[in-house]
């Protein structure tokens, strides 16, 4: 039987409640933990980190009654402990071979190009100018250009970096949507 089918709505709700009594904040926290677990598993060499992050969450949900009763502290720590166990199982099934997965086929790359074009067009003028300006130039010129952009905007270089990062995250999500990939 599929484990997912064992997750009842009530168990899931209890897990959310454990994360935060406020339902909305709990939902955000759940998403946050999932996203970070994905990054941790990817950094450990797991090729399908989404799948194994979900597995981790499922296991926590399945044991939620016990967990709520016995565990004290930041729930994130509990998720982390489970994730490590899950990862140990993963490497038994798929011994770690640190190598990248096969590159995207040419068609996919072409679609990405088209999607990038589309998503850039959807950005507002300022954000588009900012991100394209930020990635223009190379090496020394690039650094000078970024410093100059920060100066013009009246912000620190790091603030500019964060701002561009956020635009880029949005852009990436838009591209994923465009490609029909499920957003994480």
């Amino acid at each position: 039987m599929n484990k997912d089918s064992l997750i009842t709505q009530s168990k899931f709700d209890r897990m959310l409640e454990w994360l935060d009594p406020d339902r909305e904040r709990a939902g955000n926290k759940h998403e946050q933990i999932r996203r970070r677990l994905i990054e941790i598993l990817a950094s450990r060499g797991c090729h399908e980190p989404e799948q194994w992050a979900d597995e981790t969450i499922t296991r926590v949900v399945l044991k939620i009654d016990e967990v709520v009763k016995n565990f004290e502290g930041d729930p994130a720590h509990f998720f982390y402990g489970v994730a490590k166990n899950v990862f140990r199982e993963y490497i038994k099934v798929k011994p770690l071979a640190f190598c990248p997965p096969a590159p995207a086929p040419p068609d996919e790359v072409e679609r990405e190009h088209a999607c990038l074009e589309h998503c850039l067009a959807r950005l507002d003028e300022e954000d588009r100018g900012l991100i394209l300006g930020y990635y223009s130039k190379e090496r020394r010129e690039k650094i000078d250009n970024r410093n100059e952009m920060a100066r013009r905007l009246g912000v620190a270089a790091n603030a500019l970096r964060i701002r561009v990062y956020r635009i880029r995250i949005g852009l990436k999500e838009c591209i994923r949507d465009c490609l029909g990939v499920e957003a994480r």
Partner: protein
Amino acid sequence: MAQDLNDRAVLRQYLLGELSPEERERTEMRLLTDDGYFEEFELVKEELIDQYEEGELTGEGRERFERHFLTTPDRQLSLRLARSLKEYPAPTPEKKISRTAEPSGGPFAWLGALFATPARAAACLLVAAALALGVWLAIPRQPSAVSEGLLALGTAYRQQRPSEARVSGFGHAPPANTRSGDEVVYDRPARERAEVMLHSAVNKDPGPDTHHALGQLYLFKQQPDDAIRHLEEALKADGNNARIHNDLGVAWLERGELELRRDEEAASTESFGRSLAHLSRALELDPSLLEALFNRALVRTHLKLFRLAEEDWKAYIEKDATSPWADEARQHLKSLEEQNRGVAQDKKQVFASFLAAFRAADDEAAWRLLSRSRDFTGSFITNRLLDEHLEAFAGGRDEEARERLRALSYVGELEVQRAGDQFTSDLANLYTAATPERRAALVEARRLMKSAHEQLRADRTEEALKSYGEAARIFERNGGSCEALVVRYTSAHSRLLQGEAAQSLAGFESVRRDSESGRYKWLHGQSLNAIANVHIGLNNYSVASEHSRRSLKILKQTGDVVGVMKVFDQLGVEQLRFGDPRGALGFHRRALTLGHEDALDPLPLWRSYFTAAMPFHTLGLTDAAIDFTQEALRLAEDTKSPGNVSRTYAHLGLMYGSRGSHDEALACIQRALDSARSITTEKVRTNAVAYASLQFGNLHRLAGNFGRAVESYDDAIRLYDQLNFGAFSYVAHKGKFLSCVAQPGGCPSLEQELETALRLYEQHRAKILETRNRYSFFDAEQGVYDVAIDYEFSAKGDKAKAFDHSEHCRARSLLDLAEAGERRHEGLPAAGPLPSASAGLDGLAEIQRQMPDGAQLVQYAVLNDKLLIWFVSGARFEGFQQPISARALEEKVTNYLRLLHARSEGEEERLRRAAGELYDLLIGPVAPLLDGSKLFCIVPDKILNRLPYAALASPAGGKYLIEDYALTFSPSATTFVRRSQTARERAGAGQEKLLSVGDPRFDHKTFASYKSLPAAGDEAKAVAALYDSSETLTGAEATEGRVVRAMGDADVIHLATHAIVDEHSPMYSKLLLASEPGLAPSADGSDGALTTHEIYGLGLPRARLVVLSACRTAAERYYGGEGMTGIWSPFVTRNVPLVVASLWAVDSDSTKELMVNLHRLRRRGGLPTASALRQAQLEMLRGPHKTHRQPYHWAPFIAIGGHTAF
């Protein structure tokens, strides 16, 4: 801040898998709970991606990124996004990002439809695009990926087309003015769509249509090289497609324009010639193809074939009178006509303008007009002023006479002031002071002189010489030594026309001496140029070139436009004789530019078109050659010289012959003979008939009529022998020899002709002093030796003699220079001819005698239709033949190198297959003879010089060649045995002293595109640590002066730095070193770069091994005969027994690993260098770094030289 930096460093290590398990857990716990930390984590991820994409991650870091970081599709997507953003043009106020109009139904309706249900969406797209385009686009409405892509391309450029030329199938849009720096206006999303579709189409179906369409995309993107690549690919499969030919013509036209903007005149002229070839072919295949006619008019304008361009525009307007293209054609035609009217000033107008300038004391205008006024007889303004003065004086028109004399003095003053030329000043003084009697005598002398000039122009040289002789005597008797000098000068020309080279040369030399001492600059420059011309006839090309360059300098000072033009043409002729047709085209183009601006007579323009045609012909660009010769023919008729007409017809015949138009060719040669026979002066006639006979021979040989060819060559040889005129002897004998070989049954005199042709070849090469010109000459003339090799091997079955011929023509400059023991190259004074090493060249028997016991050698000769392979060891000699043409072999090698350099995933199998094919071809025949315990020396030929033999893989066992043999390369067998001998002499058991140089602090301002090489600095230190006695110079210490001084005292020299290869001037390839602080570049010759010509001058008495750990130090440019040139070459020339150098641009980190291991295996493993290199390569091949296992990383370095025990 410090904490932030530390956090970033830890996160970076975490992402690259560099943390211990404990640190990793701490980091992960924090990532889960600390929002700011996680945001920093995301930023570090993006930073790493950027650094990887920029190439800032190298070596281990790069590998870790690929193995540890790039593990998920999402991270790969991030990488591709970064790459796309980087490639995306930055927005500027002029060039904003345009938004795609989104059809209703959501943002991705068009995209989804395009990719999910292509057929339905394609139809919609077609309708939308067609509506947008209106009449602009005229391509077939086929709903294929190609037509969709082309529709999108049409949409993208509907407002402007990027260049003047017409791409086939596209309608009219006004041309962008890109020359003024304006950006081309285009619809970016539409072009992106076109790119996606056309790239995808080529990937899915790489056929002629898809390659053609992609080529068109690149034309619009103004990337002509990419366009050429795809259009040539298309043409391979569809060679008779007029539209592809048209577009390839456009691509070459665009490339030529780009080159012209970079002042690369030679390259641009060649590109225009290639463009013309394709456009003419397009019109031949489809005379109604308007695009090709339009484009041909454009390219003919670029080639300065203005009359033919006018004809094309007129023909175009006749065929298309109403379209917007026709409006452009009319505009072009009008410009050409205006331009022609602008320059069509005759001498009368120029003289009137001069008088006006004189009267207004407008020195600038007067000087400009004087600059245009000269021909080989002097300035017509000066002569006319003098004549009018004398006439007015004789007619009693005193005021007019005085004014003309004042004007003459004015010319004299201007020439003294501006050019330091005393001639006209002396002339004015002579006539001012002349008594009436003397004046009358001088008038008579001038009459005789002018009459002789006319006789000379009409090739009546005997009459001219008579008149000149009389005039000279009168001038001398009456104090007119300056005019007598002009007469002596033109007399020498008459001698030359009669083929009397020795008398002519003596005459010009005497004029040179007297004009130099009299400070008659213009005559001095002219006589130098004439001397150069005679030396060309005597096949003394280097002497000719030196005189031409001196002449150019002087004539530029005198402002003689026509004189400068003449020298440019002569330099072009010399370059062609040196075997450098591209260089020749550059000179002729400069001459034509001057001619069309300023020439008043047809003669200089005739000369320019006539001489410019030959380099085109040599490059196989027959259409351009014919166009130029036809233009020359029109001008030759205007010169009224039957000799010029005859020579022009002879060339035209030869060119028609090359194109396969045999009847037209024969008719032309016949007219050449007819014109030649109409010359009244016997010697001039003989010379012209001989020349026409020579071209008859060439024509018959081209047509395969070898018997007739031999007869014509015999005629030419006999006539030239009569004249004792050696200019074309080599050409005639070479032609006869090639005809004899090709003729079934040969000729009775074949052996003798072979001997004569090779003897004359040797005489030629001995007269060429400059290294670069020698390389070019050998390259161009290698065909003679190739035929001789083939004749001995295939026809006579004498494999040993064939090997001797092959050996005889190899690396001769290198051997000559080694023997001379001194540098002798361009830019340095040449005291005399280089000693020929011919006498000392080793034949097979001597090579076998000297072959080291532990060595075996395989030598290749790439011939037109076959590959010859010889195996040579001390005891055995064998020869093999592989039936593969030079072109097919070149394709195989090029394809293999392309795969090797691409390092593409998924291409490994293709790479292996290509390596296997080459192994079978090159190693297969000799494999049973090879002894794995011996050093395997390879002597490559032509394209094989670029091949990394180590990476050839046996298809049988899959092993690389390097797994079975230690390899060494040598440019010839003689070089191998001689360097092996040097190695024995330098193989003392004493301690090796190392000079190790790495990462010099070179001048980053001058060499701005080169980065520091920290890995090379580490390499130099690591290598030094392996030697007991060493000197290490890195960073600022590695100055040119210190490095050069230390080289003289070193046994082993290791240089890890940047190499800059100059393919055009091999003597100026260089290794970057640190600049001398506080020293001007010229203070001690240290300019922070060690050039090839400087290395030739070094004393390296101890050096036994030089390691050039830099890019492309083994591979600069290969020449037929001479082989590969490169920075390695001067070291081998300077008797260094072994050099390790690279075939391509190398990766700094993998090179460091390879180099340190090479020295470790030499020092600690006690292996000879070639074996140590082999072992180091095997370690990399079998080592832990996956990327380094690719041949790209371990195969670039080769050992060059002899067999060494160290």
